[in-house]
């Protein structure tokens, strides 16, 4: 789950990592009163969960009241990555002397948390990683949840010539490490991490991503999800234990397992059709899930056929079959249904469906060919 910069700033502040003073505003009046309190110049930053805000014109330093109102209104009317700007961060402009990069993330292959740091911070950090990989320093946590300051000191010495900055960075990164683990982050990135006019280190921008699987123990953070960034159908699906992504095509797919769901989409494509969605009913599915899946999929007006492809493992085919039968009793189907069931409790399931007059396939290829044929009719 991504959170906004102003929310991530709250986390930094909570952990005692210095940030430029500021607040969030929804109207020019709010922005103005914040700016007066902070003193000009201030920086206005669009609060959207998409990258490249600066390059899209969503970040601006303003020097006076008139400038602030103009720029606020301009930024508020921008659309970035398809999203409108609801709020702007108003913060005291930092007199930046030098930019660094520091981030914590998980290296999946190593199964370890890594700190990535560079003396070349800013928006071009990925380019630096490609062209000058030696300028990117990586520090592995070795499974520890607190910063090993002695080992880290070697990295700090490569980043900062000044011993005072080395020590100050070590303290701040220690705090960032604490935040990362305590808040179940998969990313905590400060970019740029800057030295200001007073010669002190502070965070000028921050990006935090929380592990969705960790949200059950982060009740406070889970309430901060900005629902605007999720498709309402996708959210509803998630709420009902389904994994759903809407696509452009006309073959609705209900599948168990992410791999087979992707494989089914690929197969539809290979046979000359276009998948309308990715939908994984998950393992251990109860009949209710099929009903919910059908309801969500059928809302899409482009749908010409629904293809149900189930390979029973932990999902039992009879659960799916009773879900289909319940759904058919409740929903008026306007498009044909192509059902393929194989695996755990397959025979019982087929008998249930055949009794109700539904035909079933055992072969995925046959079912996909049939579904594509019906969709292209």
């Amino acid at each position: 789950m991504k959170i906004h910069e102003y929310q991530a700033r709250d986390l930094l502040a909570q952990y005692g990592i210095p940030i430029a003073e500021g607040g969030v505003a929804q109207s020019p009046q709010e922005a103005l009163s914040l700016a007066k309190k902070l003193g000009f110049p201030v920086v206005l930053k669009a609060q959207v969960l998409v990258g490249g805000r600066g390059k899209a014109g969503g970040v601006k330093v303003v020097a006076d009241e008139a400038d602030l109102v103009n720029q606020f209104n301009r930024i508020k009317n921008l659309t970035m990555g398809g999203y409108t700007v609801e709020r702007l961060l108003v913060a005291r402009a930092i007199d930046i002397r030098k930019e660094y990069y520091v981030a914590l993330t998980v290296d999946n292959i190593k199964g370890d948390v890594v700190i990535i740091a560079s003396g070349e911070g800013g928006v071009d950090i990925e380019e630096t990683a490609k062209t000058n990989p030696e300028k990117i320093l990586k520090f592995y946590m070795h499974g520890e949840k607190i910063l090993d300051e002695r080992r880290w000191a070697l990295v700090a010495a490569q980043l900062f010539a000044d011993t005072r900055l080395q020590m100050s960075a070590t303290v701040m990164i220690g705090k960032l490490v604490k935040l990362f683990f305590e808040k179940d982050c998969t990313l905590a990135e400060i970019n740029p991490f800057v030295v200001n006019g007073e010669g002190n280190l502070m965070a000028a921008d921050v990006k935090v991503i929380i592990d969705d699987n960790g949200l059950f123990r982060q009740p406070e953070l889970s309430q901060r999800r900005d629902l605007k960034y999720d498709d309402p159908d996708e959210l509803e699906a998630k709420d009902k234990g389904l994994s759903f992504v809407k696509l452009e095509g006309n073959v609705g797919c209900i599948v168990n397992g992410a791999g087979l769901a992707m494989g089914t989409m690929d197969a539809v494509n290979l046979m000359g059709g276009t998948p309308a969605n990715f939908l994984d009913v998950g393992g251990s599915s109860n009949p209710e899930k099929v009903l919910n899946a059908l309801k969500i999929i059928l809302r899409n007006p482009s749908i010409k056929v629904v293809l149900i492809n189930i390979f029973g493992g932990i999902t039992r085919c009879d659960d799916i079959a009773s879900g289909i039968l319940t759904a058919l009793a409740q929903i008026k189907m306007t498009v044909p249904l192509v059902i393929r069931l194989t695996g755990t409790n397959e025979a019982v399931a087929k008998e249930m469906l055949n009794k109700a007059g539904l035909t079933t396939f055992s072969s995925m290829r046959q079912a996909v060919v049939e579904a594509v044929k019906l969709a292209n009719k």
Partner: protein
Amino acid sequence: MSILIDQNTRVIVQGITGRDGSFHTKQMLEYGTKVVGGVTPGKGGQQLEGVPVFNSVKEARAATRCNAAVIYVPAKFAKDAILEDIQNGIELIVCITEGIPVLDMVEVKKALDARPAVGGSSQSRLIGPNCPGLISPGKCKIGIMPGHIHKPGNIGVVSRSGTLTYEVVYNLTIHHIGQSSCVGLGGDPIIGTRFVDVLKMFQDDPDTKAIVMVGEIGGGDEQMAADFIKSYVKKPVAAFIAGRTAPAGKRMGHAGAIISSGDSTAQAKMQILKDAGVDVIDFPDEIPQAMAKRLL
């Protein structure tokens, strides 16, 4: 022969009294797996399907001499279940549970890697989490895959997916091509066993004649597998990669791009595997033909 598990594997089920745990205990017993015990804290002393239930892995290990454990407990308890197995010296741990926080897995990985060579005492291998488990057809099944679609034989199957693996195995079986072992690695970012580990075991297993790998978009495992195949694997390998039509993944700040190496689209993986001499097929039911061709 087979890899990792056979008729002598003695399995305990963690979460044996839950809905999934009890259902699949029955299924595993029916398949012939030696399920020698179960663990549910607070329910020790009960019996389920004739299997004794214990309060802890320690008790179960002492009473049953189990050497493998399969985990069906909810995500929030899964880390402790795995750590308990590692502490008690269980050789093979199979974690079916999905939705485990990634930082819990970092902790698990550290405990797994604390081997005697580095001063630790871990002697465990983890399969999963978020995986279907593994099976050596006709000998032992640990996990949730439907047993009847498998057939003893000499194709090794290794996969990151669950149900897509069943699809591939089913197609092999209906074409009378049996399997030595089928291993589901799991779909999570941090997993205990990766493609390269299993590819090595299959290459070293005298009864495995050819290998099928099933991959998907995301991560760098298929690239690592391709490099390993070039340098180590002499047996024929066929692969299916899912996700050619999946929408592009979501970006994770800059750090994700810095830490991950290269292109993780299905197309890129297919190409890199082809370049390593792997038969990359388009539809799961084309695997039997590819295998038959390579085995002649």
